[in-house]
């Protein structure tokens, strides 16, 4: 990307993360977050992103021309027509997490419909990743269902579970079965807070299992909508057995990483060169040289 092109474009970069449940917008200027916007994903994510962008620009009192690049990510990235480029959420979460803390080894994104665990390689390039294959346990959608079954507002779930004295044990790992287990627990007259705490324990077990499967022992960054749930974060701190950080805007990491992926030269990868290893001199005997072809 030449610098002349950079001059022609506005100084702001917009990252749009169209998730399964919510649509996140993040405005970036010189690598700093200047504005965010959140909306529930509708049937037409492309139009929604456009409307949200207009609202955000109005709030910030900016013009469409001020935006240099628009990068879309998330499951609905393809339907965002205003975007200049689209990247998968796995790549953008890794990118965002790397710019928050380069020492992070594992990034766990607990989103609306999926859990993604990424292992970081050099320079913020993922070297491996896992996702939940065909199971929604532990995702935001799962917590929504449980909150609905327990008749608790989703925003209060985290706070209420912290009041629990003795967490109930929830065994089922399937959303539907877990719901029926919760209903039977309610029928037994258990306290709602305890059931919630039990659910959080189960969710954190599931996430830790995925993190463990990367075989990494380093720092873990937990992000995504579920990371806003205090109860889950507390449980994770207990079970993770690793250093764990939760960023200020856990939900926005995807949009942040997407905005960072705008093809500006200042964001380009600059490798740190490792020291060249000294060449070892191996002494050979006459017989070795004679037999060298045969090993």
């Amino acid at each position, binding site marked *: 990307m030449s610098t002349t092109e950079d001059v022609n474009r506005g100084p702001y970069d917009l990252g749009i993360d169209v998730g399964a449940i919510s649509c996140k917008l993040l405005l970036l200027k010189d690598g700093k977050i200047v504005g965010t916007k959140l909306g529930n994903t509708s049937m037409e994510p492309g139009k929604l992103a456009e409307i949200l962008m207009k609202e955000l620009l109005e709030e910030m009192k900016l013009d469409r021309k001020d935006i240099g690049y628009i990068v879309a990510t998330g*499951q609905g990235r393809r339907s965002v027509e205003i975007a200049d480029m689209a990247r998968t959420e796995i790549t953008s979460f890794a990118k965002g997490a790397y710019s928050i803390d380069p020492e992070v080894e594992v990034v766990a994104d607990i989103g609306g419909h999926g859990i993604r665990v990424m292992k970081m390689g050099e320079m913020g390039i993922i070297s491996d990743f896992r996702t939940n294959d065909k199971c929604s346990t532990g995702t935001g959608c799962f917590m929504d269902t449980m909150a609905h079954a327990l008749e608790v507002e989703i925003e209060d779930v985290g706070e209420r579970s912290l009041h629990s004295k003795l967490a109930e044990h929830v065994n089922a790992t399937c959303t539907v079965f877990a719901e029926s287990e919760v209903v039977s627990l309610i029928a037994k007259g258990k306290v709602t807070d305890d059931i919630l705490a039990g659910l959080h324990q189960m969710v954190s077990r599931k996430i830790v299992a995925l993190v463990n499967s990367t075989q990494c022992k380093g720092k873990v960054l937990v992000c995504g909508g579920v990371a806003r749930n205090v109860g889950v974060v507390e449980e994770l701190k207990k079970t993770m057995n690793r250093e764990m950080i939760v960023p200020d805007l856990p939900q926005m990491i995807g949009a942040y990483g997407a905005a960072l992926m705008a093809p500006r030269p200042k964001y380009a990868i600059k*490798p740190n060169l490792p020291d060249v290893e000294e060449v070892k001199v191996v002494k050979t005997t006459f017989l070795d040289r004679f037999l060298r072809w045969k090993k």
Partner: protein
Amino acid sequence: MTNEGPRYLKDKEGYFSKEQRDRTKKRSKEMEAAVSATLKKQKNRPKAMSYFDELHKYEGARYHELKEFHDKGGKIVGTLCVMVPLELVHASGAQVIRMCSGYYEPVHPANELLGDAGLCPMVKSTLGTQMVSSNPIVDLVDMVAGPATCDGKMKLAEILEDWVPVVMMNIPRVKVGESSSKLWVKEIIHLKTKLEELTGNPIKKSTLRKEIKKWNEANQHWSELLKIRKADKPPISGRDAMLVVQATQIDRIDRWNKKMKDLLLELKKLEKKGLFAGEEGAARILLAGSPMMYPNFKIPTIIEESGGTIITDELCTGYRLMADPVIVDGMSKKEIYEALAERYFFPCSCPCFSPNDERIRRMKESIKVFGIEGVVFHTLRGCHLNNLEATKIELALREEGIPMVKLESEYDEGDIEQVRTRVEAFVEMIKARREFKLSHTAEENK
């Protein structure tokens, strides 16, 4: 063979309504047409591919040809695995079709009777096809040769006996030692006698030799194609290559050889013009894992649509079909059968064998030779053998610095978007790594 015995599932055929039968047929046809259409949409596609498209078509030219052959009294043998020596079947004068089905819809009737959702969908689809006779070409089969490789295939062969006679072949699953080779040679000779019984003409040494020669020629053509695929910008896509090699399983081999020759010459011309089948700067992918029979081209299509090209594969419905020639040394009948048996047994790296280090070794070699940047390991739901080997392979590839992604798929289209996200992320990761490596070396050169 066991016409007198109980025919458990055949008796249940009345269970399926006419509506369901018609629906399965219609959906299968539609699916094949859709897959064929996406294949035809690929850019820079060689014209010679149209023959192979036509060959695989549902109720296409090959079906009518085989039907005519069958009506005239010719015999048709169905195979369930790559380990059936097709030279032998062709030498007996019979024609071959591969029974393994890639159609999605017949899974449902099989599911309804077997009641196990966790079973391998390919086995279920093959069985479902037979149950509701949704694929007319399968109804022509007079005998099935079924090597007992994995559990699914073994029981599938057993169940199929309700409809057609089946020759079960006992595959020695441990490759070490001399006894395994001897057992497998005996199984091949058993198949030979069964084929002779079926067709009524004895298999002569000279005819068998002629067939072996034809198949070796096919092998040579296939290695020529692999050579073309080694190029920086191969003019053929991975899907097309898979389509071509799967055609050997249903076609007459001499005609296949002729058409393949045309294709190779055309590809060479395309290569000279610098035409590339994939996207610019596509990630070079090796596809490995569970088999993918023709209309089930879901995963390869996703890979090639999201910025990757399949340079080579390690599938038993791809590379492995034609990977090895039959090398006969000596004139005696025993030596010919030994050569034939060992060609289909020892170099085969099916996960049903143990030890199976050859697979990792072959993959590593392919990665080196073809310049692979990433491996997509695909497993069908319930394919235990491949699932179990995936971890081992992933660890071995990690040592080489080659990333691998494992995808589990089913015979339905519900998981396409999920798989697509993972594949796209994988391709992005490969491209980022490539960029990083490039800048790294550029910096070093300074």
